[in-house]
């Protein structure tokens, strides 16, 4: 249910109105029936179908960023996630191709379709991150890129004549790859996540998890969780954005048990027990990517794609983008005053301090 009745606003805005907003449940619950001549069925629930049709027609955008040192299997993982070659691997990495001097941002877009749903997927790769000897401030280009996307969206939104559908290039999700050292997080990891968790949804992922045994894995995960908590780093799903109790319990379970996901990626198929599965072949066995006993790839995939895809986009739009927008408008000496652009020119409402991007 939408929250709150703006009675005050009604009174102020319309002087000729006799506003009597009185919410009351009017129609008792009736079973959905298509060929109904029954008195009682109105057909309000068809709006779900209408909305679904509309969204399928317009299609979706999704932008995912992968950050981590080179060689951690970022591209492979993305390809495995989306079961297609959306990310060009550095497998054909030849010695002539130098490690970039600074962090580069490469965004490549593809259109994928499944079940009538078209999605424009953009994978943003960050080669060069953490590969230098001196890695100070190597997150800055990334932060800059993310803010640039917010800026672009803001520009479009502020236009007088706006596009019907503003192209969304904002980063919805950032997979941060943690090296499977088995000990703890590196200072670079902490620094990066501390800076970026305020501007984008970060999902920490333990890469190449097939180098750890089960006990090592669970210990490592616990340590990582502890460290993140101690350092005040809120990764997605953030506690403060849980909407209701249902969400909270569901997300708590994920936050406290599953995350960070320890994954293995692969795009090669092998025959196991008569089935063709994605996996990695080693002398001591085949690691099945989608087998929950072997690694948590399936959990990650379900989490990101099957259940929380829309939520990732919404948190980006409703929270991160709004924070950026508010900060941006405040920094510019209060572009529209706190009470709104139109109407009297009031001094800008002093903004409550928003979480800065620095």
């Amino acid at each position: 249910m939408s929250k709150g009745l703006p009675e005050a606003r009604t009174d102020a805005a319309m002087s000729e109105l006799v506003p009597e907003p009185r919410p009351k449940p009017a129609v008792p619950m009736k079973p959905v029936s298509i060929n109904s001549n029954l008195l009682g069925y109105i057909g309000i629930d068809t709006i779900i179908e209408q909305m679904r049709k509309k969204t399928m027609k317009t299609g979706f955008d999704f932008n995912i960023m992968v950050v981590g040192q080179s060689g951690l299997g970022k591209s492979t993982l993305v390809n495995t996630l989306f079961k297609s070659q959306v990310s060009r691997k550095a497998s054909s990495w030849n010695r002539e191709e130098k490690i970039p001097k600074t962090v580069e941002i490469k965004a490549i877009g593809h259109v994928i379709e499944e079940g009538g749903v078209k999605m424009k997927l953009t994978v943003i790769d960050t080669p060069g991150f953490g590969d230098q000897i001196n890695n100070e401030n190597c997150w800055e280009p990334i932060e800059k890129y993310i803010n640039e996307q917010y800026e672009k969206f803001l520009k479009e939104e502020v236009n007088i004549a706006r596009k019907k559908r503003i192209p969304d290039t904002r980063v919805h999700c950032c997979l941060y790859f943690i090296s499977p050292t088995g000990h703890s997080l590196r200072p670079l990891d902490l620094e990066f996540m501390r800076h970026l968790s305020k501007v984008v949804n970060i999902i920490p992922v333990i890469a190449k998890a097939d180098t750890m045994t089960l006990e090592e894995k669970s210990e490592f995960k616990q340590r990582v969780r502890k460290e993140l908590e101690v350092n005040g780093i809120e990764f997605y799903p953030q506690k403060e954005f849980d909407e209701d109790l249902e969400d909270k319990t569901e997300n708590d379970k994920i936050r406290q048990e599953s995350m960070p996901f320890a994954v293995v990626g692969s795009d090669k198929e092998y025959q196991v027990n008569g089935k063709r599965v994605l996996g990695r072949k080693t002398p001591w066995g085949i690691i099945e990517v989608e087998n929950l006993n072997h690694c948590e790839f399936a959990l990650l995939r379900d989490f990101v794609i099957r259940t929380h895809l829309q939520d990732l986009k919404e948190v980006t739009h409703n929270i991160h983008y709004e924070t950026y927008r508010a900060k941006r408008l405040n920094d510019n000496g209060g572009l529209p005053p706190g009470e709104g652009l139109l109407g009297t020119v009031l001094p800008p409402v002093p903004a409550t301090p928003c979480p800065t991007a620095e």
Partner: protein
Amino acid sequence: MEAEANSGSLEDSGAFIQRPGEGCRTVPLAGHVGFDSLPDQLVNKSVSQGFCFNILCVGETGLGKSTLMDTLFNTKFEGEPATHTQPGVQLRSNTYDLQESNVGLKLTIVSTVGFGDQINKEDSYKPIVEFIDAQFEAYLQEELKIRRVLHSYHDSRIHACLYFIAPTGHSLKSLDLVTMKKLDSKVNIIPIIAKSDAISKSELTKFKIKITSELVSNGVQIYQFPTDDESVAEINGTMNAHLPFAVIGSTEELKIGNKMMKARQYPWGTVQVENEAHCDFVKLREMLIRVNMEDLREQTHSRHYELYRRCKLEEMGFKDTDPDSKPFSLQETYEAKRNEFLGELQKKEEEMRQMFVQRVKEKEAELKEAEKELHEKFDRLKKLHQDEKKKLEDKKKCLDDEVNAFKQRKTAAELLQSQGSQAGGSQTLKRDKEKKNNPWLCTE
């Protein structure tokens, strides 16, 4: 949906490279990924937030607006029928929470009160237009705030306007034409013929044709049901041809055959509301609620609201200077306006200060005058007082003189008397004797 020129729109900052030529191509999937659940995820979120839908009913008093709403939503909404003696047009708004299976709808019904009742109807459309604009304005204000909560904002913009046409059988009234023309760029208008059981079938067809042709010739743009989606194109297309819908509303249920149906009973027969041969009520319900509710909401937001926003912002003096216009240009214009306002404010302040000084001067002069007068008065009074005093003193002196004179005479007389009594005491005796003897002798 083809890629919306993604390759061209990514920026070229120093550390950012775009792979050339890789644009946006469709990539085949090697298996089931699972993002086809995305529409479901989206819909579930919307369901948990709830929907809102706002209908505006415009029409003369007594055309059955409230009854039709009751019939459409199968319930009795509150409100008494209005009288015909309203001095002007007013709008009455009510919000209701309806629930059907797992879908919650916040329905707002706004109705005109007193429309068409006045003798002079020139301004009848104004309150309606103002109301619609006010809803857009409220949304725009929210959108322009620095800290805003758009996703949980109660959208009060009117999504559909049902225009009730009186069943005269001839043509549209000029009031109808004028009002619809004013509203067609602000809201989705769906014209309906009210109380259509007053018209026979043949008259109805002629009436509908006449109305449609009048609307077209006057350039009134009514809402067209969308025909771009194949699944609904056909039904919407046929419905478009049936506009305006001829409806009958009734909340009374009568037993017809072996079912209870909404109907109106006349001596000559019973009109069934949900019988498609009797009236277009079912069509209206289909179109309004079951097929196009989402489209109505979208059109309101993407077309009417955007138009309002554009006009309003342009009115305020903001312009998109060029394709790369940044928020700065809005900012600059704003700064300029702000300075202008500040300058005006200063001027006003100066004026007020001057006026104040002048007033003070005037008041001072007045007070001085009064003071002078008072002094004069005081002097006069003093003088008078002094005169009076002098007079009194004079009189007193006179009196004293008289008293003194009298005293002198008295002492003189007493002296003489005492002398006389000494020297001639005998004389007195003698005189007394003489007096006795001669009573007619007068003494001195």
